[in-house]
């Protein structure tokens, strides 16, 4: 495993950890250090009498440290990995000390126990009863939601910008009560539309129609295919048991992390990791959640390759997935890219024709360059077809500087005719630009 410094820093839970990690990347801070084929470790002299023992599982990237920090990874883990990314040669290949061996073997035992735990039987009858009750509750909520949507449509959206937050929050809360958190989130985002921006009407109506489609689709779910029913359930907010998912066969592949987006709301941090499988040519979205820096299972960073088995959530066009098993972190061969926006349009048409309420998707593109036209930035393909760069995209000057006016191979996220670059390739290196 060899991560670039930037990739290591992307693992940090917050800015202060990045800074502290950098400060600990100096060799002078470390009493001892070493590497084996399984782990990277070091002893860092802190303020106490005994140095902190820091270890990194380099097969399935994971951290452990004897320091009292609740952050994950802690500054010592980041510092150690940063030092390794800067100067690999300074780490001698040697046998793991006992404290590292103990942790690595415990991790292996834990994986086995997890598999055993999955064998436990569940009360399917009770489960079905609970599901039925919830569906009824959701349907009751949907009826109220549809009335609210129709009221908006009847009265017109002209006065919507003048509504206070309560107008949306009350309905969003009602959807929570109705056990439809997905719909609640969609209603909340309706209230978050920037009503001062030009074209808010289209954005607002777009989202309103999507909510309508999900709600009405769920109400008529019996008429849909089983896979579309699953999509609808996901959008409503039904969760699928990860343990059950893990029992299903997945796709074993070399996956490149092409983008990582982190959003924080109150104390909940949501990580959206966009992956691409080199063999399967499948895109995946792996979500991870953490509360106050705790709870992230896999340490993923943009540009990192992992060999892993991914299981996809049931969908007409599978995208969201979980990592069932990570074997190692390695760098394989080449990727296949789309050659132009026409191909993207074809792909999107295939998705939207079956999932009209689908969100943004990622695409790996070949020979794309930023161009300036009509007072704004666009992304042009080799045929000079242009899509707009997402408003507020902060990496434009980095993108331009890396491009120097030449076309780049690029991963983009978006839909229809608006996209934002996630990363670009420079030689074999994939560099984040968002």
């Amino acid at each position, binding site marked *: 495993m060899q991560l670039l410094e930037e990739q290591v820093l992307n693992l940090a839970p917050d800015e202060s950890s990045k*800074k502290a990690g950098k400060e600990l990347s100096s060799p002078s801070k470390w009493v001892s250090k070493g590497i084996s084929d399984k782990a990277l470790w070091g002893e860092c002299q802190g303020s106490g009498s005994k140095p902190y023992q820091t270890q990194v599982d380099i097969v399935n990237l994971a951290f452990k440290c004897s320091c009292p920090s609740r952050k994950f990874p802690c500054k010592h883990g980041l510092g150690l990995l940063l030092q390794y990314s800067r100067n690999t040669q300074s780490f001698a290949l040697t046998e793991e000390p006992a404290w590292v061996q103990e942790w690595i073997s415990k991790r292996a035992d834990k994986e086995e126990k997890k598999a055993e735990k999955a064998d436990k039987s569940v009360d399917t009858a009770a489960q079905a009863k609970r599901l039925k009750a919830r569906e009824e509750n959701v349907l009751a909520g949907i009826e109220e939601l549809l009335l609210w949507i*129709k009221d908006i449509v009847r009265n017109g959206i002209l006065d919507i910008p003048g509504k206070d937050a309560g107008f949306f929050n009350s309905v969003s809360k009602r959807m929570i009560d109705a056990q439809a958190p997905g719909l609640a989130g969609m209603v909340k985002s309706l209230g978050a539309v920037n009503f001062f921006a030009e074209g808010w009407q289209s954005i607002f109506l777009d989202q309103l129609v999507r909510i309508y489609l999900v709600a009405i689709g769920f109400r008529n779910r019996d008429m849909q295919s089983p896979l579309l029913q699953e999509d609808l359930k996901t959008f409503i907010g039904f969760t699928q048991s990860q343990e059950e998912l893990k029992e299903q066969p997945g796709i074993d592949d070399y996956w490149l992390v092409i983008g990582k987006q982190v959003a924080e709301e109150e104390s909940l941090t949501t990580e959206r990791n966009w992956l691409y499988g080199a063999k399967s040519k499948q895109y995946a979205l792996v979500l991870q959640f953490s509360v106050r820096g705790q709870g992230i299972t896999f340490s993923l960073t943009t540009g990192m390759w992992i060999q892993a088995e991914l299981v996809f959530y049931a969908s007409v066009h599978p995208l969201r997935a979980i990592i069932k098993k990570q074997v190692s972190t390695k760098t394989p061969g080449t990727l296949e890219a789309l050659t132009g926006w026409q191909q993207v*349009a074809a792909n999107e048409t295939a998705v939207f024709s079956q999932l009209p309420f689908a969100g943004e998707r990622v695409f790996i593109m070949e020979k794309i360059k930023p161009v300036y036209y009509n007072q704004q930035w666009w992304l042009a393909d080799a045929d000079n077809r*242009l899509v707009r760069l997402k408003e507020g995209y902060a990496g434009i*000057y980095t993108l331009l500087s890396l491009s120097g006016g030449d076309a780049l191979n690029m991963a983009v996220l978006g839909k229809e005719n608006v996209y934002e670059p996630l990363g670009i390739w420079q030689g074999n290196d994939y560099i984040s630009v968002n």
Partner: protein
Amino acid sequence: MEYWDDIIKTAMLGTEKKSSVPEPFNEDLNVAAAAISQNAGIDREERFLQTAALVLNYRQCGATAMQQQEVTLPVAEKEEKTYCSTTALQLLKDILQQESNSLLYLWLNRCNEKGLLVTPRLVPPLLQKAEQQKNLRELIVQCCGKRGEWLARFNPAWNFASTLNDEELWQTGTPEQRRQVLQRIKITDAVKAGEWLRQTWPQENAAGKLELLKAFAVNLTSQDVEWLESLLTEKSQRIKEEALNQLKQIPSSGIVQQYQQVLQQAVVLKKEKALLGLSSKLVLQIQLPAAVDETIFTSGIEKLSSQSKITDEQHILQQLISHVPPDFWEAHFNEPPTQVLQIFEKEKATAFYVPAIAAATANFKNKNWAALIADTGSAYYPELLPLLDAPLRDKYLLKHFEKEAAEAVTFLSGTQQEWSLDITRALLQYTAKNTYQYNRSFYKEHIHLLPTQIGGELQQFAPKEEYLLNLWNNISEYIHKLLYLKYQAGQVF
């Protein structure tokens, strides 16, 4: 898209006021749209929502990117210089993270000296830095190479990175660029700078004139006199004052000559008999002549003293002396500088005017006189410091450091060359005791001036007061870190 626009129009007013939805639809949508409109089981709102959903999906499925053959982006020129090493780039990232402009200056300077460039990834953060740090702009532009020049075209805030030559900048640059280029040319080619400014002067506005005139105040020569004197008839009072101020710094200007004439009469060195006529001694007499040319009082010389211990006459003489070059006295007394100074210092009444001579030395930037006063006198004249060579300056500062520490630190903070170990020790002795005033940001901005060797001695400066000790320990650890980065900046290139 047309259908979607129609849907929005209906949505804006509401189905109650505007029931129509786009019709007729094209053949792609016609069948589905007809099914919706003919569905009697749904109400008007539902019909609208279903039609909107149909049009929405038609729009998003058919979204094709527009083709514009004429849209291109010029390609950046190939670099002529090479990129610096990964280690050097890594250090630059660390320095940017520390936000120390002082270290950044050092790094950029070294990079530039070696004729190397930063990689494109680091060009935007550096240009962004240059946006705020004007003193780093030139170095940053050099280190960003052709890519920086190319990139800057797309951001008006980065127009400082343009590679226009000085004359083009003077003709077409922003007010700030023009001010800078004038100042630069005034140092290297004073005649040309004068020509440029005279040519455009009538076209400049009042505020612009004043700024340019201030930039002109470096490397003043006798060739500037005529033009500066012509400015004394300008409308703007502030321009007149600035021109007069500059004229007072040129020995051949009429105003300085006028002051000299007054002083020639007022200050007389006489031989007087001593020891009952057996020997003679030189006596300095200083007295304003009975009739003083009144025009001197229109050039800024004050008539009345505001201090009770200084008479009006002393006050006038003091001002006049501080505005004539010190070498005037050499010619006036026909004595070398050492003798002149001794003559003034001999009597208390005449020694009173030595500070005015020191002020004149600073005003006319006379390095010989500055060295003489600093080396022989016991008084402290901070205005002489910029004129002294580093060893003498340090000796002079160390002699007065204890009493004048705060002022000395302020002066040293503005210097460019790395401090000597002795002066650094004296400075730290003082700043370590005043940790609230001289905190981390002080060292962050001045680390380029601290010699790296001082790193091993930091513990010696620890203050005795318990309440200051912890803070100093934190600060000294921080200084260590900065010194390590500084040391690396010397090694990585």
